[in-house]
């Protein structure tokens, strides 16, 4: 499979060369072979020794072509080039980011203190959509693009989780 790591200007080819049994594997990244021993593994994460170095990874989220993991406390996003479409459900919400994206998501969890817009309003990128309170702080959620407010998905005093859609902007 072919991988790219976000923020890093390289792409990688990676595959398992051999399963040696007893949780030992030989894997190949680009042209180099590596020894890998799985210590523990489940669907949430893996602990392994790669070429005599211990690593601990947590699998956060996977979509058709993107995978978020935290390895040794370092969050890394991998882009995958593969064909899992038939089985993998794309669970990252809308389609892509940027101007095309309808959904405005909250990057923090919190309680809605106030909502600054109404459905049908024309708004600019950076306009405050609503204000959340969390840990005694007030944080403004701002529009990610110019557009018209299609729907507001939250109510005052409601609790919002990280990643929840706050509003849809067309």
């Amino acid at each position: 499979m072919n991988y790219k790591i976000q923020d890093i200007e390289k792409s990688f080819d990676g595959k398992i060369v051999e399963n040696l049994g007893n949780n030992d594997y030989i894997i190949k990244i680009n042209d180099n072979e590596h020894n890998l021993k799985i210590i523990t593994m489940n669907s949430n994460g893996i602990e392994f020794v790669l070429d005599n170095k211990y690593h601990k990874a947590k699998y956060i989220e996977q979509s058709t072509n993107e995978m978020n993991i935290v390895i040794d406390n370092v969050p890394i996003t991998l882009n995958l080039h593969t064909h899992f479409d038939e089985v993998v459900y794309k669970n990252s919400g809308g389609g892509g980011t940027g101007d095309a994206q309808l959904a405005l998501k909250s990057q923090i969890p919190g309680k809605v203190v106030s909502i600054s817009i109404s459905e049908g309003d024309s708004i600019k990128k950076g306009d405050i959509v609503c204000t959340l309170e969390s840990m005694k702080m007030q944080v403004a959620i701002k529009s990610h693009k110019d557009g018209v407010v299609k729907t507001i998905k939250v109510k005052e005093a409601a609790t919002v989780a990280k990643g929840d859609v706050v509003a849809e902007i067309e």
Partner: protein
Amino acid sequence: MIEKVLIANRGEIALRVIRTCKALGIKTVAVYSDEDYNSMHVKQATEAYHIGEAAPAKSYLNQDKILEVMLKSGTDAVHPGYGFLSENDDFANLCEKNKIIFIGPTAESMNLCGDKMKCKAAMLKAEVPTVPGSPGLVKDAGDAEKIANEIGYPVMLKSVYGGGGRGIRIVTNDKELRDGFESVTGESIAAVGKSAILVEKYLEKTRHIEYQFARDTHGNTVHIFERECSIQRRNQKLIEQTPSPIVDEETRARVGKSVCRAADAVGYTNLGTAEFLRADNGDFYFIEINARLQVEHPITEFVSGLDLVKLQLDIANGEPIPFKQSDLKMNGYAIECRINAEDTFLDFAPSTGPVPDVIIPAGPGVRCDTYLYPGCTVSPFYDSLMAKLVTWGQTFEESRTRMLAALNDFYIQGVETSIPLYKTILNSDEYKNGDLSTDFLKRYGMIDRLTKDLKKEKEEKSEAALAAAIIHSEYFKNRIQNSTVNNSNWKYKLD
């Protein structure tokens, strides 16, 4: 003698107080909100009482409910921790009336500390230097100019009705002052319909240096050295250390004496902290007294050998402080990093939620005060301080490198933390050289450096990340061949 203490608080500070009480054989009473029924302070206290809903106003700030628990449980003293009711003189009063010892200053002294104008007046009388400026409001531009020339430019014009940077002007000469006076007055009238202006010396590249002090009911006062807390974000301390790299023996003793005068001046009892701005020219200016145990008290414990909570209990019991100023010797160097649940790159926005796994660092010279345990939750209802990581060393370098090693060991799954930022800061030459100031983060572009450090870290971890991804894909493929997959959340179906 205090035999049962209610801790009107939660989180790491509640645990900190419980710990000393346990060692002294004193019973403890925890209180908890709906959000905290599974929190560590409930598990560690002798008794635990539910006091209401998650919102602080309905639980940890609910004085009537807390009083009810104190009376029901036969508590003879209350420790307020920091935050919540710790500097609330009404609560101190309520305790006094109900013959429950409030572990802290009297309501009267607390009130005096909390009133900035009255407190400043008391300091002037006690010859404790405050930031030079007008003793109160200035009458007019002429009055302001007179004072500006006395204290020297640059000065700051401040509308008492301003706030958040509005109604403030820094001026460097008489002309700028006269123009500035007019516009600040105008802004203030436009905003709130009235104006009242103070003049204060404008200080650049200041350090935040504070002194721990203690005063007993017999009038004995000691200071327990300084702490430098210059590394801040949004006026909140991130990293504290003692000794300060720019405080020598002579300065320590000299400013320490003024701290004792300050404590005497407000009739303080129990432990408190006198906060100072330290100007780049070496002058110290008193800002305020924090009338409670501070978050950063462990660094003082490390270098003094004292248990400050025990000292609080002794003083609350009416005992004299069991040592003299001359008995206190500073031993080694200590650093504290406040491990916050926050996202440095989202302007330090809170990060909350379940913490399935934690590894807490330990070892020689390492102390970690925390409420975290595997399976706990970081609540959005309370502040973001999850842990205080504190290290000690015979030298500053030893305490610094121990801190770096401990930061590397600290594993907190599920929430964003300030740990990566602290690694960048502790590795910087400016930090190593003690070149600190309250604008340290901005002055030295620490967030940008962190971005670079994280990119480097990503590069170093890229092979391991790929390995994890490769194995995951393989595992996934094997599993889906053997089971019915519910596509909507396959992740949870694998095990």
